[in-house]
């Protein structure tokens, strides 16, 4: 590695180290305050106790199977939003009148607090996985539609002209040019949708006390298992962060080098 | 080349200014032992090829760059930050897009706490001076590039600086607008007897407006020559056609050309070094 390269690595490593050190220091201070009695340990359990209960929660509460349950719901919602979202986006692209009429409605739906209607979904689908999946689906659908539309509409004119110059048929034009060109943007839409879906799915699991990870937190809270509740929340946040990071990596891998 | 002489009347004195930068390829010297003086009421241009360090010099005098060796003194006080006697006009678009013309121009007065009625009146005077009366309530977004630069100029003049420091303020404008705005600046300068320091790469502009021109070498930037421009005042852009004018331009171009080609060769060498291995 040349001298400049080495220099820049240090410039990035130092702030990251400071960040991590601050977080560790914060938790160490918290531990101290709680053990010292300044902070009530029946409201905030000491971090050591929380870490300690991880193992217990993992085994006793079947975290692995819960994790896969939640994952299954997300996957189902993911498949649904991809199928219907891409199809919807394509329809809006293909039929301009439809786009002009409904695009703002789709955008409004994206901003609408769909999850607030969860009692309604419960009435329709019962207290079941389908309520959870459907809420995830409805909340996550708009970004996929909008990004698909954006990707297809935004294909650079010159690429379309290249296709025309080769006398491609409509179908060939779509599959060989428009679709691959729109793919990165469509993936951004699916990524956004998946994140919305996960957040809503875990949230609803918590609210209706059914499902995998979200339900676990609700359960532990109702049992007044303080350390367990904190541990479960930490775990779910961790899963959420890892999910988000992997989606980002996947998108970067899919996107051609600009 | 005689060393610049400083007289007790000098309003700005730069002495042995050295500016160094750390870059990916190692340290470079942008400004190398530059010394000069500016006399009250005079129009001094600093001209040089790209890469001669004139922007660094601009930032040093303006107090935005304090990491340098040597001193710059204004009316006896050493500069170690933006000085109240120096007003800066930047090369880039610098009007505040969310304020109208009058509020833009009144900005420095607002900062020192001048009451509203008084600062609006003061601002209107300078707006008229740059020829934008009638546009007080317009927003920069509604004006052309040249008009926006005039607003920036009026704003700086409103702070009534002893020295007006400008960094290629007309670089983004087309030639005709530039010449006409140059006329305007000259007219204002002569009316206010404003000491002005102009950084530029445009020879015509420098000769048109200046009493003296300081020619800089390519990096590391040193003072190559100081040329006295003895063209009659008051001047307008019409002078561009005169014979004396042409001679001055030729003289300065002869100096600059050498420096500019050195600059170009340097850049070519750079590009070659960075070429990816095929």
């Amino acid at each position, binding site marked *: 590695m040349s001298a400049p390269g080495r220099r820049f690595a240090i410039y*990035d490593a*130092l*702030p*990251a180290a*400071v*960040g991590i050190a*601050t977080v560790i220091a914060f938790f160490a201070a918290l531990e101290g305050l709680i053990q010292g009695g300044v902070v009530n340990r029946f*409201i*905030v359990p000491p971090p050591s106790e929380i870490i300690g209960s991880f193992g217990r929660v993992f085994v006793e509460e079947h975290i692995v199977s819960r994790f896969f349950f939640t994952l299954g719901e997300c996957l189902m919602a993911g498949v649904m939003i991809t199928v219907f979202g891409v199809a919807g986006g394509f329809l809006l692209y293909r039929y301009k*009148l*439809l786009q002009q*009429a*409904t695009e703002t409605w789709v955008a409004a739906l994206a*901003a*609408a*607090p769909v*999850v*607030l*209607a969860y*009692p*309604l979904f*419960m*009435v*329709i689908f019962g207290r079941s996985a389908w309520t959870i999946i459907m809420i995830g689906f409805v909340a996550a659908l708009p970004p996929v539609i909008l990004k698909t539309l954006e990707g297809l509409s935004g294909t650079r004119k010159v690429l379309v002209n290249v296709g025309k110059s080769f006398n491609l048929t409509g179908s060939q034009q779509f599959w060989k040019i428009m679709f691959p060109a729109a793919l990165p943007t469509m993936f951004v839409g699916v990524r956004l949708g998946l*994140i919305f879906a*996960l*957040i809503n799915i*875990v*949230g609803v699991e*918590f*609210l209706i006390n059914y499902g995998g990870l*979200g339900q676990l*937190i609700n359960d532990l*809270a109702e049992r007044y298992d303080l350390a367990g509740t904190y541990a479960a*929340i930490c775990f*779910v*946040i961790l899963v*959420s*962060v890892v999910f*988000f*990071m992997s989606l980002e990596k996947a998108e970067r891998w899919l996107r051609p080098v600009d | 080349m005689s060393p610049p002489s400083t007289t007790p009347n000098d309003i700005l004195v730069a002495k042995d200014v050295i500016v160094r930068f750390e870059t990916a390829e190692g340290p470079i010297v942008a400004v190398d032992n530059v010394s000069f003086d500016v006399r009250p009421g005079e129009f001094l241009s600093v001209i040089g090829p790209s890469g001669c360090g004139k922007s660094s010099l601009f930032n040093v005098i303006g*107090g*935005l760059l304090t990491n340098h060796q040597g001193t710059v003194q204004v009316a006896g006080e050493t500069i170690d930050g*933006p000085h109240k006697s*120096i007003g*800066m006009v*930047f090369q*880039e*678009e*610098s009007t*505040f*897009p*969310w*304020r109208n013309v009058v509020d833009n121009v009144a*900005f*420095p007065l607002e*900062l020192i706490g001048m009451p509203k009625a008084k600062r609006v009146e003061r601002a209107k005077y300078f707006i008229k001076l740059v020829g934008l009366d009638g546009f007080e309530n317009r927003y*920069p*977004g509604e004006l052309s590039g040249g008009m926006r630069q005039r607003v920036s100029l009026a704003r700086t003049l409103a*702070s009534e600086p002893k020295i007006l420091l400008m960094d290629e303020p007309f670089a983004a404008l087309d030639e005709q607008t530039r010449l006409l705005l140059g006329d305007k600046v000259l007219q204002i300068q002569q009316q206010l007897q404003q000491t002005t320091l102009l950084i530029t790469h445009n020879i015509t502009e420098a000769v048109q407006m200046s009493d003296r021109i300081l020619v800089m070498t390519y990096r590391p930037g040193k003072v190559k020559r100081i040329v006295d421009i003895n063209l009659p005042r008051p001047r307008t852009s019409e002078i561009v056609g005169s014979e004396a004018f042409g001679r001055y331009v030729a003289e300065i171009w002869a100096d600059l050309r050498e420096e500019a080609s050195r600059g170009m060769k340097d850049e070519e060498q750079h590009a070659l070094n960075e070429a990816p291995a095929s």
Partner: protein
Amino acid sequence: MAETGRLTRTAPSAPLLSPVTLLRVAIILGVLAGWELLSRSGWLYRDVVPSWLAIGKALADLLSSGEYYFNLGVTAAEIGAALAIGGISGMAVGILLGANRFLAKAFEPYLYYLGPTPKIIFFPIMIMWFGVGPGSKIALGTLSCFFPVALSAAAGMRQIDKVLIKVGKSFRANTWQTVWKIYLPAMRHPIINGVRLGLGVALIGTLLAETKLSNKGVGFLIIQAYSVFDMPRMYAMLIVLFVLAIGANALVGRLGGLHTIRR
């Protein structure tokens, strides 16, 4: 058919009758008709899809009841408080991170990755810390809206045209003046956008918390309607809620646009 012909001829000069509007009206009518059909068909469990008449009546009852406005006020106050606390602290943190590159590299990744996580799961902790009253709802709303506001503010700081800051420096503006007269106006678009996002998530966070554990507020009323299976009332409340939420979103967006003085 003759009617269509007439419309087509006058279309260009009568935007009200444009094909787009016609399609929209057609879709809306179609949905309304389909709904009513579904309601009367007895296909689904009776009150899951109540007739429009029932929903209309429930809506009228709702909007004329003092009890509803009281609860609406409670929720609005909670959301307002959450937005104020989360918004101001988010803005302060965002400005700090945007201004200082080192701090941004050290701490912004945490905000960025912790942002898109379900915040409602923190509710049990909020109840422990702030009790079962409005405090825990406000706390959850604050937690929700802190992140988007902070991230928008940080990004907003970085997109400020550097020359404007130099102008402030050249006129020797002090820190306070620089923040108020240059940073904040220059960031007005990202700030408005951040507030819009913040409002959206604060609304969701606060309302979900109300549905989970509360005895006041719109969320509480919704869950109450659910528990007694008063479907028309629930639909009515959801309709009002969605209209208000989308309306508030559009209003804030419009407010940002009114100050548009773009280069």
